[in-house]
């Protein structure tokens, strides 16, 4: 039995975020909506403090609060990624929100509460923690999606997200109760012990049903096909900075939760869930590549692109060994930065203070704003996975782990992955062609927000070959994190 002090020490990052959110709320209540900028920057500082707490946590696997909470290498890795994405998402929104008169001071606070939920998600060690943390995250995201409440599309996005999110939560809870009913425990370690014992004979059908429902519930959150329906509409309708946030941190957190559930709780049933994950992966890659071809709205296109990317990451989950899990973690980091960078480019597409979403409006960007066009081109090439950019390495490690795993189904999945990324390259190239070769359309607004430009430059440099400097340390960290996850199995 751990002491109370030890428990508190292990959840320090989460406590920091929760207390930070309340602190921001107090400042916001007294200073009003004008404090948005101040609060956003304080939020960045809070994420920084929480990240410091994460780094001083011990690297071993430790549980707290009667095994409801676990911290290990995987959790620490993912938490740092999530805090980075949240911090970036908080500050890139300021100018957008102010210009549209939706500068509610609650914006960074909701992001921080969502981040608290995500941080708890990747540290979940019990079905109850899983559900509560997922709800904390989702509830904040529903509000963020409809924060532009005078805009019909934004409210529609929020409502749609809410209804489908509630549905997925229902499925998840149903699965949890089935698993609990058949296994007799909600604790992940307990589940692994119990479900391991049934490996000799086929597992009880009720447990399988429960597991499938839990996977479906999480598949909704990572928007894997066929549970992706909400993604394009929500991405299109939400204000652009919110979309940037939705596409980055929550995806990383939900993937982290998926890894936790599959390897910690259902580690003994890997033969059973592998097929499900492979099918989700193949469908996501296929739809992500094909459905995006006909899009004209850049946000919808990026939504389909994110569906496809989740498919690639799921290959690594299906393989399920050290190399593949570290490949998934690397993929998530690179995906997170590239996505944020691509949405920073979309944020730069403003005319007379309006967000431009039609792709054809990018025409002649190479002449009008060559720097932006160059950055966007690099980012799109990276999303497509063209060497020598970082997106290539992300995909490379995933496919490599799948091929090394061997077996016909996994090899076919890898081949299918390569094929779909070739198809997907077509629509990334289309945007690049519009920017460099089509006739010029009207100018966008002059970029007047320094932070966004700095962040865009930094993320672009990260995805460019210069990012290779980070590849070594990133690989080492991801390997450590993967060992923490699988080594415990």
């Amino acid at each position, binding site marked *: 039995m751990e002491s109370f002090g030890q428990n508190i020490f292990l*959840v320090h990052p989460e406590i920091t975020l*929760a207390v930070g*959110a*309340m602190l921001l*709320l107090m400042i916001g209540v007294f200073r009003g909506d004008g404090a948005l900028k101040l609060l956003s920057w304080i939020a960045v500082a809070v994420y920084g403090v929480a990240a410091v707490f994460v780094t001083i946590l011990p690297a071993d696997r430790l549980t*707290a*609060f*009667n095994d*409801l*909470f676990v911290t290990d290498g995987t959790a620490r890795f993912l938490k740092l990624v999530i805090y980075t994405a949240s911090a970036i998402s908080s500050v890139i929104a300021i100018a957008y929100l102010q210009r549209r008169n939706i500068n*509610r001071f*609650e914006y960074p*606070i*909701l992001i921080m*509460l969502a981040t*608290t*939920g995500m941080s*708890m998600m990747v540290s979940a060690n*019990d079905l*109850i*923690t899983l559900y*509560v*943390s997922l*709800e*904390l995250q989702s*509830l*904040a995201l*529903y*509000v963020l999606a*409809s*924060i532009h*409440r005078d805009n019909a599309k934004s409210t529609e996005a*929020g409502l749609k997200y809410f209804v489908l999110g509630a549905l997925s939560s229902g499925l998840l809870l149903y699965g949890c109760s089935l698993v609990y009913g058949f296994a007799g425990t909600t604790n992940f370690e307990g589940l692994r012990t119990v479900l391991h014992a049934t490996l000799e004979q086929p597992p009880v059908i009720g447990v399988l049903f429960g597991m499938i429902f839990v996977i479906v519930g999480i598949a909704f959150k990572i928007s894997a096909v066929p549970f992706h329906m909400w993604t394009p509409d929500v991405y299109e309708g939400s204000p652009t900075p919110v979309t940037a946030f939705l596409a980055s941190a929550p995806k990383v957190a939900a993937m982290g939760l998926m890894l936790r559930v599959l390897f910690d709780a259902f580690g003994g049933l890997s033969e059973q869930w592998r097929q499900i994950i492979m099918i989700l992966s193949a469908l996501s890659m296929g739809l992500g590549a094909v459905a995006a071809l006909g899009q004209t709205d850049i946000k919808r296109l990026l939504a389909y692109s994110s569906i496809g990317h989740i498919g690639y990451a799921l290959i690594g989950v299906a393989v399920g060994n050290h190399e593949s899990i570290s490949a998934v973690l690397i993929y998530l980091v690179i995906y997170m930065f590239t996505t944020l960078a691509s949405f920073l480019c979309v944020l730069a597409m403003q005319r007379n203070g309006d967000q431009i979403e039609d792709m054809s409006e990018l025409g002649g960007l190479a002449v009008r704003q060559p720097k932006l066009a160059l950055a966007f081109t690099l980012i799109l090439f990276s999303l497509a996975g063209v060497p020598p950019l970082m997106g290539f390495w992300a995909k490379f490690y995933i496919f490599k782990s799948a091929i090394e795993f061997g077996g016909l189904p996994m090899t076919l999945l890898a081949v299918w992955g390569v094929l779909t990324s070739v198809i997907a390259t077509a629509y990334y190239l289309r945007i690049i062609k519009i920017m460099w070769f089509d006739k010029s359309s009207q100018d966008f607004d002059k970029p007047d927000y320094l932070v966004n430009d700095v962040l865009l430059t930094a993320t672009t440099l990260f995805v460019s070959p210069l990012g290779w400097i980070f590849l070594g340390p990133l690989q080492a960290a991801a390997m450590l994190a993967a060992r923490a996850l699988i080594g415990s199995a």
Partner: protein
Amino acid sequence: MIQALAFYLFASITVIAGMMVISAKNPVHSVLWLILAFFNAAGLFVLLGAEFLAMILVIVYVGAVAVLFLFVVMMLDINFEELRKGFYTYLPFGLLVGAVLLGELAIVGLGWVTSDHAASLSRMPAPANVTNTQALGQILYTKYVYVFQASGLILLTAMIGAIVLTHRTRGGVRKQNIGEQNMRQPSDATALVHVQSGEGL
């Protein structure tokens, strides 16, 4: 003996109140009958030794949900005569659904009664000398304190969300400013006028 008497009293009143909920002409009366049904169901829970559920039923269902129903019924202008029109048309269908449900319950009940090891599954061993409210409190604030606090954060998020999405500053609203009221001097509102007798103002 007394327990059996109490059970039949609570059970029969619950059933009668339930019937009255759907047969009362006035919807407000329906809600009041519903409250009676809730109270008697709470009584049944007490008889089962589940006093926490009984309290929750009274506090949540009577205290909040039924009152909400009353508000809705009273404030919305619903023509209940209109709603009642198709009653006999839909009666066979309703009876059918009811019969299916009853059949399913009967199957579950029969299975439970005839099963050999049902008794061993029926409940967790109850800790001695601890009421279930105490037991819940002990586990909620110790073992599950982490998720308990997280639930608090969820409620905070919900509250912030509700305010963000619905609160707007409206023009033309007169607000009470207590400080201003207290600072108000007699000279701000009254004027002392010297009136000549017999002349008026």
